[in-house]
């Protein structure tokens, strides 16, 4: 067992599960989307990205790319949230909640791709 692989897989899967937890629920209902979950998903996603730095294989490059996509989507979602509650002043209205949730849905797809790639790589090694 390789500890590096464990940590790596842990962060990738955790990024997916947290993202899923935030995304699930009625898309327009603020009560179904917890801000702490979005925060955790973003932080774990960032850490997962850094974990993929410096891998020179083709698989490593694709994993880094999907992870960067997830980061981008989640950061935009967080910015929309912060803008709505602090700058715009309207609070979490329905259209805003929908756009936050759908952005995180995009990130969810990217994270699923990451996990699928991880599974493919694991199956290929057969050890």
């Amino acid at each position, binding site marked *: 067992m390789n500890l590096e692989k464990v940590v790596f897989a842990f962060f990738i899967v955790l990024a997916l599960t947290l993202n899923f937890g935030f995304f699930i629920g009625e898309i327009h209902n603020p009560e179904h989307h917890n*801000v*702490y979950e979005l*925060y955790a998903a973003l*932080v774990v996603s*960032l*850490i997962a990205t*850094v*974990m993929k*730095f*410096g891998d*020179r294989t083709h698989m490593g490059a694709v994993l880094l790319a999907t992870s960067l996509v997830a980061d981008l989507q989640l950061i935009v979602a*967080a910015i929309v*949230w*912060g803008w709505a*509650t*602090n700058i715009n002043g309207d609070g979490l209205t329905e259209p805003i909640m929908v756009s936050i949730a759908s952005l995180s849905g995009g990130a969810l797809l990217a994270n699923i791709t990451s996990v699928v790639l991880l599974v493919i790589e694991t199956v290929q090694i057969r050890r």
Partner: protein
Amino acid sequence: MQADTSIVYILLRRLRTPLVVLISVYAISIIGMTLIPGVDDQGKPWRMDFFHAFYFVSFMGTTIGFGEIPYAFTGAQRAWTLVTIYLTVISWLYTIGVLLRIFQDPGFRRLVDYASFTRAVRRIRDPFFIICGYGDTGSLLVRALTERGLNAVVIDNSNERIEKLETAGLPLYVPGLAADSADPAILNRAGLAHHNCAGVVALTNNDKTNLTIAITGKLIAPDTRVFCRAESHDIAANMTSFGTDYTLNPFDSFAERFAMAIHSPSMYLLYDWFTSEHQTPLTEPLSPPGGDWILCGYGRFGKALQRYLASEDMDITIIEADPEGTGAPADIIVGRGTEAETLEKAHVKKALGIIAGTNNDANNLSIIMTAKALNPELFTVARQNETRNDAIFNAANIDLVVERGDIIARKISALIITPLLADFLKFSRPYDNQWANILISRISGVTGNNPPYTWAIEVDETNAPAIYETLNENLSVTLKDLGRDPRNRDARIKCLPLMIKHNQSQTLLPEEDTKLSIGDQILYCGSKSASRNMIYMIQNYNTLSYVRTGDELSSGIIWKYFAGKKAR
């Protein structure tokens, strides 16, 4: 390309831990700020949201410290802030420390150097030469090339020498890399396969390295010219066998020039003029006497020198400190030559000249000084091994100083810059001192006291379109026409044709009425401004026509029409 990406990969890989630490510390600090209850300005319970927490931790982490916002903190919030201040500051220091350590890492710096070198080479748009070895010879050669506007790329295995290159103040930017030039990957990086690479010059002081460079050059880029320094004759023969264009033996070339200086001083002076890049004023030829000479040092140089001087009417006494090691004949005098005793044994008082030819500059100077004290009338010749000793050799007031690096550098730069000049020097060898004397006076008549500048013109469509067109109209152009001043055809520009090459046969010092034909190559010497005038003339049809016939041609269609009418 490869080096560029590997820099990014290495940087990212090494920054992995610091970045994870930084993200974690920020995450913990921010979440703490949002979880700890506070009170607002009206005393109501209040919790910081993520937006404000991120804002607060960001400025606190960089220790800017704007204060407690948006409302004054409670005790619990202050306690948490205390913890996070230390966490963030330490993690930042750690990250920056790692970053600095990466930049100072010799391996990483080498990668950065390689990448910037490769980029600089790729950006060269003109023909360039790869110079391997930046010692005395290499640095002189690079200076000579760049002063003529030719690009160069330098590889040397010593960091110190590459630093010297960076501070040399050359007229063109010369990329340099500290690496092993025997490595084909390094030569490739230096642009061996680049379509602008015109040649490779192997000047390292290791024959095997030079051999590897020559093979690599000829295999990877068969069309480039390869110039090689080889100390042993075996290696030189080996290099020639696979098509190395020029091999130069430093001892042979040095001894050859040395011998020339002694038996044919005017010829030596001619060589000196034509191959000199620094514009020193013309000097009078030396006249070393024939008779008894003393030669100190019987190493590879001494042997080569003895071979070249053997044909002259010179009686040479050899002084050598290590007769067994150098395989010297039995009748030599054992000693270094730096002490009066040895020199007296060699009859220094009766000798006419002395050659200090050891491989140690201090010893050579000491030999000269001691010999002069014993016999002030001596003609002194010294071998200078290192360029940095210029000042002391100048101060020693020696009749003739021959510098090794200088001779090879000049030989190669003549071959590279004007290949015709190298031919001229080769074909002028059989002529005697008398011939050289006449040529010297003719050159002085043209250039006055300034050293001659040499240039070559080629009669073809791209280099001399005006001559090409004129010849195609079945009109003739003579060397006399080319020597006329384009502003006033009765005046002459300061130039002298040295050689004309026509269909592989060459004529030295051609007559003025020689007619040009397409494909001719002409070597000229004269003043720099004359070369500019001539190059202008051979490219401008109207100017050439004026110097040929004295008629000023009309250039536009309308003026041509009227001129034609008047003539009819």
